[in-house]
């Protein structure tokens, strides 16, 4: 009993290793900026909320996700445009962006990140004095 469990665990670990070697898909993104901040939208079809990981490491923003696709057992691939289930992309951020207040949303496989600018960095209109 214990032995069986160990073997299956090893298998799972081996599978995990293979998956980590699998080349990640670079998700297509739109990035735009307005006065209040920067918005990143990324297409990550197949990724659900619990398989999505957005994290900041010093000034690098990383987006990672794993697509879960319902497949019947013993399926043969007839054709495949998508050969990986892992998405990964990262961006370096600049200092005026407030990484503490990033908002993330995921809907129908589209990730939307709102990265606000720090208050002191928002553009101010400078009045021209005449006189």
């Amino acid at each position, binding site marked *: 009993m214990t032995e069986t469990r160990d073997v299956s665990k090893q298998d799972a670990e081996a599978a995990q290793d293979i998956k980590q070697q699998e080349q990640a898909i670079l998700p*297509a*993104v*739109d*990035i*735009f*900026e*307005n006065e209040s901040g920067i*918005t990143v*939208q990324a*297409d*990550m*079809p*197949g*990724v*659900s909320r619990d398989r999505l990981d957005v994290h900041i490491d010093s000034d690098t923003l990383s987006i990672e996700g794993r*697509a*879960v*696709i*319902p*497949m*019947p*057992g*013993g*399926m*043969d*691939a*007839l*054709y*495949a*445009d*998508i050969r990986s289930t892992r998405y990964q992309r990262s961006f370096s951020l600049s200092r005026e962006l407030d990484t503490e207040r990033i908002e993330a949303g995921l*809907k*129908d*496989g*589209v990730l939307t990140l709102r990265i606000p600018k720090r208050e002191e960095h928002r553009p101010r209109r400078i009045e021209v004095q005449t006189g």
Partner: protein
Amino acid sequence: MFGTLNTSGAGLLDEFRRMEREMNQLLGGPPWPNSIRAMARGTYPPINVGSTPEQVDVYLFAAGLNPETLDISIQQNLLTVAGDRKLQVEEGADYYRKERYDGGFRRVVTLPEDVDPDQVEAAYRDGVLHVTIKRRESTRPRQITVK
């Protein structure tokens, strides 16, 4: 001055094209013939097709669609999926990247001959459209018991 700049730019582009052509000649196309309806890689949306003895599964990786705008039809063994992806453009914002597909699309997939066009199901979840087409009962492998 701009004249020279332009020519050198075009020269570089030509150089790239020549390299691309040579690479294609060197590597050649795939040794197997492509399906006559095959599209170039990178066509939106990407598709995967899988098969089991019971059914054929088609996956379209199309995030952010309204499933109601999808038009899925099947004629014999030809599955057609058409739709429209309208992205909201933020007015007055500066765009740095615009990589996501915006517009209408249509993809046609040739399925194996033995699919049953009357038994098709489609579901849209997390940005993946999954179409399941059952194979005809008579063509499925059967276990024959020896008496």
